């Protein structure tokens, strides 16, 4: 249980960083932390203490195995996270070229 709570604390730190920090680069780091907290949460769902790899064989039946489904999902989720982060970095570079700053308070041309 304490592992799940720590995982949610990590999620909250990432969300705080993403929403409150004024620097675009820090926001990107915050998004990374949030994504990895969720990925960790998925891995924890499938985890069992002392579990083995779930490979079926006739000779040695495995009784205590790790759930492979969340791990397969997380591989997809990591790749998606990479795509989103890359896009975010690319947009940040272009924003820096236009505004000459990473400070969100100075990037305010849209109003109303």
């Amino acid at each position, binding site marked *: 249980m304490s592992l799940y709570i720590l995982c949610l604390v990590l999620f909250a730190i990432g969300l705080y960083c993403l*929403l409150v920090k004024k620097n675009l680069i820090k926001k990107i780091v915050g998004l990374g932390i949030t994504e990895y907290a969720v990925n960790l949460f998925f891995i924890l769902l499938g985890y069992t203490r002392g579990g083995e790899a779930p490979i079926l064989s006739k000779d040695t039946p495995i009784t205590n195995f790790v759930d492979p489904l969340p791990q397969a*999902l997380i591989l997809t989720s990591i790749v998606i996270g990479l795509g989103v982060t890359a896009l975010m970095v690319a*947009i940040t570079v272009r924003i820096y070229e236009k505004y000459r700053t990473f400070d969100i308070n100075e990037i305010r041309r849209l109003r109303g």
Partner: protein
Amino acid sequence: MLPIFVIIPLGGAFLIPILAKYRQGLAQLTANLCAGLLLFFSLCSISWLKTGIKIYYIGGWRPPFGICMVLDGLTVLMLLVVNLIGALALVYSIDYIKKYTSTYLYYTLFCLLLAGLNGIVISGDLFNLFVFLEITSIASYSLIAFGAEAEELEAAFKYLVLGSVADTLILLAIGMLLGSVSTLNMADISRSLSNSTSVNLIKYSTALFIIGFGLKTALVPLHAWLPDAHPAAPAPMSAMLSGVVIKIVGVYALVRVIFNIIGFNQLLSSVFIWLGIISMSVGVLLAIGQWDFKRLLAYHSISQIGYVVFAIGLGTPLGIAAGLFHLFNHSLFKSLLFLNSGAVEYSTGTRRLEKLGGLYQSMPVTSATSLVASFSIAGIPPFCGFWSKLMIIIAAFAANNIIGAVVCILVAMVTLASFLKVQKYAFMRKAEEAGSGIKEVPVFMKISMLCLALLCILIGLFFVPFVDTIIKPAAAVLLEGTNYAKSVLGV
């Protein structure tokens, strides 16, 4: 036959950059061909539905183990919305997008967007839905930033941050459901949840789903990104974003999860109703003061989506049908209005209403179609928006929700006032300086706008057969609630 809805646009997105190396014109040809085929197949899917719901098992694996694709009434309605607006927006793009460079990238991203939207609609697996959601999101972030000017990049970054928060919340909610029932197939989750013991986990995941999809729908406390993001995109993309993306990614995914997987109840009904009421009133009040044509339309999108969520939240058969009908109508007239605003910007170079004027002489097609769309959104009788708003108001009175019904009527009046302002400033009044250089837009933009205006009028005139053939089966899917599991699994 069901995977074609994903295969065609994905294949198109793959081919376009390769073909564009040889000749630039092939890119738009391929994209339009894909969209045309998709529109044809989604019209066919109406008749496929006559023999009951269709299920495709990917790789032949049956539901609890494999991923399946499901075609039911709601799916057919949403496929029609996506592919109709997608095809017309692409026809419009042929002329409009010429002012940008690297147009083949625009068509590639547009095809990816169509693939993601069709995938969300047709998928029967919760994690698969999430993956398609991400494809849609990434394509729409990049299309908003497509102009790469300062404002567009700023809007795209804002949308990216809030969109990613929504995506992580949705993924967390999916994780919680996976943790409590150990399955990802929607029908199987729904069946397992009915005899599950972890009630608290289901409550948390429901709350996370509402916040996550609510952010994507831009319901009012979560709407901050929409008025920046939608006007920043190129006009056909704005039409897609306001007309289709917020409905599929937001409303469709939300109601599918809430009605068919978790199960609708009294508490959720009041949450939907109040979110809807707040969205429609705040959205329209913020819209009155706007002078930027596209920004005004973006605020009206928030308000109109409020109507849809309110009506579906009533939970009665009439309410759900009215909400889905309004969703379809809104996709028609809001896309048309965004295309009109794009045409105005294309010809005059500005979107500020106070700088425009007298366009009904120089741009007759644009002003006539925008008049049709404005009457539709404001709810003037023979046009399509009137019938769906009337149905929503009757449904609210029938469900004894007097506050909601009164708010619906008041918001409709304010909407009318707001669009009279648009008509007066942009089209009707005399231009102060002689607008001699202003010409009507090229032919493909005209065709696309005329088609949408014609559909607005036709659906307004023949709304009874339309509601019977398309809307009723869609509402029936939501009404059967968690019995969805039985019809998909065939138990």
